[in-house]
């Protein structure tokens, strides 16, 4: 019994900070359970959300999960910055600091940015290409639940069992059992494997959706730019995640079963891990940023009231980036001594990527040129992206120059670089997308004034946080150090950086307030087309009915909805009662949720080496698969009368 307690609650989980988190978690869970029971919401929750296979609802769930994870990752970030605010600080000890930067990085990449990207895919893509759903709705729900349970698994580590602490890259020998006992690192490995499976399934799903389910007339070169970047991102996912899975599983084998993959004594090589990890890792940074490139293209064109400039060069530069991104991974470890020839090759390929990226920046600028620009919050995020990303890209080129990298590697210069591209590129883009598509999924507009406050706080906070870090890098401050002494001259820059971080935190709070306020008081979007949009999603009502389109639109032009508006043909979205037919839709299913739960149970068993629990989880998975394969009844018909009622309520019936 006492050994079980020691396993579940090692000393790192009984510090004051963790204990107060325990209290908060228990209170919050109790409040949620009370609310659901008191208002009889369990059934509703199960029927409408936990079992849904509707891409719009799945998108909303991704969105909520991602914002929650942004809160957790952001809290970690503020703790890190608070620790570094002044020299010789002892808010966090060294081990505590290690744990928090590990969870910060892992959560931000895998459990915040990725799901937010998938939220955008789910919310926009099927509507944008004129489809009633994704290719594999049930698989889509499975992806979500694998992600959600993996995120849950990862997040409980710090209160039960102990947090991982080897950084988001988790290099051996830091992760070897001999140097890193306890279960924390197992949490990291299992969570990444499980969410990686879900991500791969999402990649397959959107690849097939975009290749095969576009509305008639929408050729590849007539697709909205966001559909292009989603397509390419899906391909990147399919090719990037297997090496990650292998790296994670092999580390897990080393830790749980005593294999010798990365332990030097028996012939293993830590460098093997590093190569596998970055073979995934560099394409991953493009998985993170390409969707945002797509969002910018939509937002900039819409709010400049112009066609996207240089559409086909955009497409080709996205394809070039995809291709090149597989040939650059070694730039993450130039200093590990692969030799001059290897380093030169990878240095050049890295710097080459700047060319297609630069082309895209110019395209966005020329799109705005002479446009009638409307300064909505979505547009402001898009505009803010340009200077921010340019600085990030330029410092990336500096890092890609091998001799330079020997100086900058693993310093605060690197930290500033990747935050510059990931926040300035990925996060700004996703925020732009959230403000842009919010009315489409919720039916209400986000309040613009609050949105602008959130934007300015976040944007200024960003520059205040990260610009000093470039200087700190030059001054010799290395990453992942938990404190520093007075004499280095780093104190004032660190303090500024911490202040900036708290300004960003304030921006986040205002943004969440903005979301909640607008859901209650926000202006209702009656037209379905609040921005005078260009692509098909704006031809549907907000929120779109379950079947998206009563009749699949026929596309004749690149900006399909814009063209219909120009030719005064918007009445094509109205349907005559006699033209309505029954619509076949996928049926809700409990299997995806139970599948996620099985993986969760399996993972807990693996983390603690409780094989019988792992076996039970595996069995659950097998049962879900069997039930799924014998379940032929996965579709339902929406009767035409129901469609007629819905359409007439939207005022979309002709005659």
């Amino acid at each position, binding site marked *: 019994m006492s050994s079980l307690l020691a396993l579940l609650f090692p000393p790192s989980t009984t510090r004051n900070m963790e204990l107060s988190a325990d209290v908060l978690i228990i209170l919050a869970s109790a409040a949620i359970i009370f609310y659901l029971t008191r208002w009889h919401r369990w059934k509703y929750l199960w029927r409408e959300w936990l079992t849904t296979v509707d891409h719009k609802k799945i998108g909303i769930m991704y969105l909520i999960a991602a914002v929650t994870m942004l809160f957790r990752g952001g809290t970690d970030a503020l703790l890190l910055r608070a620790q570094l605010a002044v020299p010789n600080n002892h808010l966090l000890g060294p081990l505590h600091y290690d744990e928090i930067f590990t969870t910060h990085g892992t959560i931000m990449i895998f459990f915040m940015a990725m799901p937010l990207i998938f939220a955008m895919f789910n919310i926009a893509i099927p509507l944008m290409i004129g489809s009633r759903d994704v290719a594999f709705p049930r698989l889509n729900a499975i992806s979500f639940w694998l992600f959600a349970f993996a995120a849950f698994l990862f997040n409980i580590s710090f209160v039960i069992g102990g947090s991982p602490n080897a950084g988001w890259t988790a290099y051996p020998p830091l992760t070897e059992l001999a140097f890193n006992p306890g279960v924390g690192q197992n949490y990291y490995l299992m969570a990444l494997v499980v969410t990686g499976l879900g991500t791969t399934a999402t990649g397959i799903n959107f690849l*097939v959706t975009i290749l095969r389910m576009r509305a008639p007339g929408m050729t590849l070169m007539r697709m909205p730019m966001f559909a292009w970047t989603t397509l390419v991102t899906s391909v990147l996912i*399919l090719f990037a995640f*297997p090496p990650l899975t*292998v790296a994670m599983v092999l580390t897990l084998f080393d830790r749980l*079963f005593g294999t010798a993959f990365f332990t030097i004594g028996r012939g*293993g*090589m830590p460098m*093997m891990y590093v190569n596998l990890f970055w073979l995934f890792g560099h394409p991953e940074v493009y998985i993170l940023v390409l969707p945002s490139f797509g969002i910018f293209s939509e937002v900039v064109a819409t709010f400049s009231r112009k066609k996207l400039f240089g559409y086909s060069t955009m497409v080709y530069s996205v394809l070039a980036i995809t291709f090149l991104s597989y040939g650059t991974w070694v730039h993450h470890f130039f200093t590990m001594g692969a030799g001059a020839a290897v380093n030169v090759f990878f240095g050049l390929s890295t710097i080459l990527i700047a060319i297609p990226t630069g082309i895209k920046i110019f395209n966005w600028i020329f799109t705005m040129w002479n446009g009638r620009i409307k300064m909505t919050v979505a547009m402001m995020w898009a505009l803010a992206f340009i200077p921010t990303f340019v600085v990030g890209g330029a410092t990336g080129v500096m890092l890609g120059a091998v001799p330079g990298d020997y100086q900058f590697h693993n310093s605060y210069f690197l930290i500033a670089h990747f935050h510059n591209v990931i926040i300035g590129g990925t996060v700004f883009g996703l925020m732009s997308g959230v403000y842009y598509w919010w009315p489409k999924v919720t039916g209400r507009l986000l309040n613009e004034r609050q949105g602008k406050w959130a934007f300015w706080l976040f944007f200024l906070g960003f520059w205040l946080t990260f610009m000093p870090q470039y200087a700190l890098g030059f001054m010799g401050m290395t990453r992942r150090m938990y404190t520093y002494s007075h004499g280095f001259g780093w104190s004032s820059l660190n303090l500024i950086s911490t202040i900036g971080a708290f300004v960003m935190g304030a921006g986040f709070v205002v943004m969440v307030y903005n979301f909640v306020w607008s859901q209650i008081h926000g202006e209702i979007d009656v037209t379905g087309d609040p921005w005078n949009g260009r692509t098909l999603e704006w031809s549907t009502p907000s929120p779109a009915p379950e079947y998206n389109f009563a009749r699949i639109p026929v596309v004749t032009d690149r900006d399909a909805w814009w063209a219909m508006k120009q030719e005064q043909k918007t009445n094509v979205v109205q349907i005559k009662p006699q033209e309505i037919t029954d619509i076949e839709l996928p049926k809700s299913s409990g299997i995806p949720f139970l599948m996620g739960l099985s993986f969760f149970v399996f993972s807990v068993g693996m983390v603690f080496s409780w094989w019988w629990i792992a076996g039970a989880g595996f069995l659950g998975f097998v049962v879900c698969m069997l039930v799924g*394969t014998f379940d032929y009844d996965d579709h339902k018909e929406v009767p035409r009368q129901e469609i007629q009622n819905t359409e007439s309520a939207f005022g979309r019936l002709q005659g």
Partner: protein
Amino acid sequence: MNLPVEPDSTAKLPLEFTDNHESLKILGFWSFLATDLLLFASLFAVYAVYQSRVGMQGPSPDQLFKLGPAVVETLLLLTSSFTCGLAVYQMRRNHKRGTIIWLAVTLLLGVGFVTTEVREFVSYIAMGDSWHHSAFLSAFFTLVGTHGAHVTFGILWAITLIIQLMGRGLTTVTTRKMYMFALYWHFLDIIWVFIFTVVYLSGKI
């Protein structure tokens, strides 16, 4: 979801491609095979680097491998790929019984493969060469074991398929599942050919 398909263009298509839903799944399965291929590629890369890293006291690939079981496994799996092809052939000719019989033969050959492989592994472990001992052994057992686990999954899949074929006959859904199974099975066969050459043959030279 229901894109209009020209009626006469579907007439010549095999059954599993005539329904749009089902043919989407086939494309999805191809994409899955692509990522699975990358998974094996990563494991092959690990193995290629580690095959010479045998630790302090070995064994080396040359000392470890017995070609006998590997040849038997190869013959069993290659034959099963052929019988799997026959099953699809029978399916295309709309012979339910033939499909099921050849699928069952495929399944049995698969069972033979897995049993031989397990016995091969057990014999290595009995000599004290388990995957703890060196990076080479870890990589060997993981690469070949991952393939073996795939085959095992395939066998279970084939069983559920036979049940569905018996109960439902050859419909767009069951033929699609059968076709996907065949893709999977041939894929594993190709992977095995690489394992046989990269692991066993080149280990013996």
